[in-house]
């Protein structure tokens, strides 16, 4: 028994693989947050007046709000918003026209992270075809495949470029799904966001490659606030991937992103995330505070949005990717695997708001807790008065590893239309010694047995991931739980 306890204490011996810092010359805005900083960021990006005004409205609104500390099952000290930098950017003498002009030190960073920023030729058939936008700290440093995509009328660029080149699209859609009044972190993001990705798929176009944004926090004491906006016009389709990592630092870093998706009639958007921000060390020191608002508006009839997320990183995760099902017959889906180990805390889930008729939603949430972590599912399914014949199915499964962690489920269901059908299923199980013994008796090491069991547990969600990501995500699951069983 004491052996088991010892092993349990030992937990992950695995080092966070992406914890390095790149030595690049960076420029910062002065520390702290004020109207001047908001103006500084907007001026730095040479934004049109409407953006500055929108930011200032968001900032002033934020000042009236309180950090949401009471309802989420998360425990952290109040954040000092004045003790952060809100703008950090790699210094680039001239704006690079293509990735080949980007600082080699930066390109090397991507190599270490395993991101391909070279535009591989389709003919090679070896490398996958993915267009990437890379965001370091506050700014996008390059987007691949822009030309190929633009031939189809697809716009895929950084948010800054979009504000400069397509201000009318940005003005029309920014804040239309997540207004700055939505919540504390959305307001903060609206005031100080510095970059992110922008994507527009025109009518009837099926995007021929995966679009992807890679976020990297590099600078110390710097909050990252990026904003992503995806617009899928009628009858279009796009699959979008997001990945993120950060260096290992002793202080907690703040990340407050907003993602907005608009799906018009018959459009389909798949949005996949592999979130691997630095989770802090084994004693719970350091790590990223991840406060994210992601929401999709299924505006048109028969539109569909699927969120898939694999969350293994961050000290704190606060995130509820949601779908507003406004169009009749629209569909929202949420597939999630959230892993917490050591002292990580996650409060994550989804909201499905049924407004249109015959709308359908599905929530599949798999939480895995190890170490002394806490993992909560929190979800809301709301069927509005007019949402006749709407359906939801939710399934929340929790898997516990060891006996010091916690799994919690907070489902909220509100049904205002008697024709609605809502189903909720939940299970909690434990990686039992009996199952481990069974696997080991077949010759498997304990770590491999755990990997097999968690991959089985998470399979339904992993199957939703695009191929290239699924492999990476599977490895990540295994690494983040290695040695967590005694």
């Amino acid at each position, binding site marked *: 028994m004491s052996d088991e306890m010892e092993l349990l204490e030992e937990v992950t011996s695995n080092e966070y693989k992406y914890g390095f810092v790149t030595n690049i010359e960076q420029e910062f805005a002065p520390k702290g947050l004020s109207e001047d900083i908001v103006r500084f960021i907007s001026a730095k990006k040479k934004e049109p007046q409407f953006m500055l005004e929108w930011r200032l409205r968001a900032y002033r609104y934020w000042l009236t709000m309180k950090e949401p500390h009471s309802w989420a099952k998360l425990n952290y000290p109040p954040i000092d918003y004045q003790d952060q930098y809100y703008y950090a950017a790699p210094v680039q003498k001239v704006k690079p026209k293509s990735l080949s002009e980007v600082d080699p030190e930066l390109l090397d960073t991507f190599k270490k992270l395993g991101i391909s920023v070279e535009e591989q030729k389709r003919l090679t058939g070896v490398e996958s075809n993915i267009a990437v936008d890379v965001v370091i700290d506050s700014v996008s440093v390059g987007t691949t495949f822009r030309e190929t995509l633009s031939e189809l009328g697809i716009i895929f660029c950084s948010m800054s470029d979009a504000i400069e080149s397509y201000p009318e699209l940005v003005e029309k859609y920014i804040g239309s799904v997540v207004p700055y009044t939505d919540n504390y972190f959305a307001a903060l993001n609206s005031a100080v966001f510095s970059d992110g990705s922008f994507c527009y798929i025109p009518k009837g176009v099926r995007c021929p490659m995966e679009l992807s944004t890679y976020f990297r926090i590099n600078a110390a004491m710097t909050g990252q606030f990026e904003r992503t906006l995806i617009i899928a016009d009628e009858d279009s389709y796009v699959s979008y991937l997001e990945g993120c990592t950060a260096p290992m630092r002793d202080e907690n870093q703040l990340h407050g992103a907003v993602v907005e998706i608009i799906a018009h009639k018959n459009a389909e958007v798949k949005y996949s995330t592999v979130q691997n921000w630095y989770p802090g060390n084994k004693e719970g020191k350091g790590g990223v505070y991840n406060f994210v608002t992601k929401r999709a508006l299924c505006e048109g009839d028969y539109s569909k949005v699927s969120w898939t997320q694999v969350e293994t990183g961050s000290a704190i995760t606060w995130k509820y990717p949601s779908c507003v099902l406004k169009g009749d017959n629209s569909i929202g889906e949420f597939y999630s695997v959230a892993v917490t180990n050591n002292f990580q805390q996650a409060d994550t889930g989804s909201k499905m708001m049924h407004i249109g008729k015959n709308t359908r939603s599905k929530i599949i949430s798999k939480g895995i807790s190890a170490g002394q972590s806490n993992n909560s599912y929190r979800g809301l399914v709301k069927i509005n008065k007019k949402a006749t014949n709407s359906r939801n199915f939710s399934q929340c499964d929790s898997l516990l590893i060891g006996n010091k962690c916690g799994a919690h489920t907070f489902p909220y269901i509100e049904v205002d239309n008697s024709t609605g059908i809502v189903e909720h299923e939940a299970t909690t199980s434990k990686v039992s010694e009996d199952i481990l013994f*069974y696997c*080991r008796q077949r010759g498997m090491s304990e770590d491999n047995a755990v990997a*097999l069991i968690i991959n089985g547990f998470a399979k339904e969600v992993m199957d939703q991931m695009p191929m290239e990501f699924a492999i990476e995500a599977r490895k990540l699951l295994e690494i983040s739980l290695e040695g967590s069983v005694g």
Partner: protein
Amino acid sequence: MSLLEIKDLHAKVEGNEILKGLNLTVNAGEVHAIMGPNGSGKSTLASVIAGNDNFEVTSGDILYNGNSILDLEPEERAREGVFLAFQYPLEIPGVSNANFMKQAVNEIREHRKLDNLSAGEFLKLMKERAAFVELDKSFLSRAVNEGFSGGEKKRNEIFQMAMLEPKLCIMDETDSGLDIDALRIVSNGVNKLRNKDNAFVVITHYQRLLNYIIPDFVHVLSGGKIIKSGGKELAHELEEKGYDWLKDVQN
């Protein structure tokens, strides 16, 4: 040298001594049946040989090919060729039989310094061995034991045995909960696997199984020790008279 030699084995679980000086020698090519009343220590013996650490060996030794295995982890024993067919096989949701077996076979092959099988070779082997116990190939993509009937779970145990090609096969009440047809299928599977290099220790309550898997030796386990050993005819005698007369003999 014997394949398995158990010497004066004492073992306890949760403070209670269950095995109290058990001796047993098994040579390659032999089938040993172990019978005995409930609570006599039959399943404990199986668990202890396989290395389940809920059981504590307090004295005595277990030699496998002449070497003590008491310090080996369960997976090390498995890789050396010890296989336990579980009385209650476990369910592993979401993990297909094919993936489960691939992991097991690869780790065992690595230990034996053999190359991994190619996907094609592996699939061929799976299909061939599944046929031993009349499992059709659709079973390969189903999750391990999830939603399996009692009979299917036991057939799956024998299938896994066939895949891993162990030297010492311990079957813990594999016949419990089997109907006549399943019993015949399971026994046929086992008989196909018998050869001069491996050995079987068959733990059972009933003589019935031993009509199909003919043992070379029958042992009666009672009160944590083997109190009587004999040939296959001993099983018939037990079926007729029960165990009580042996306790009287013992006393």
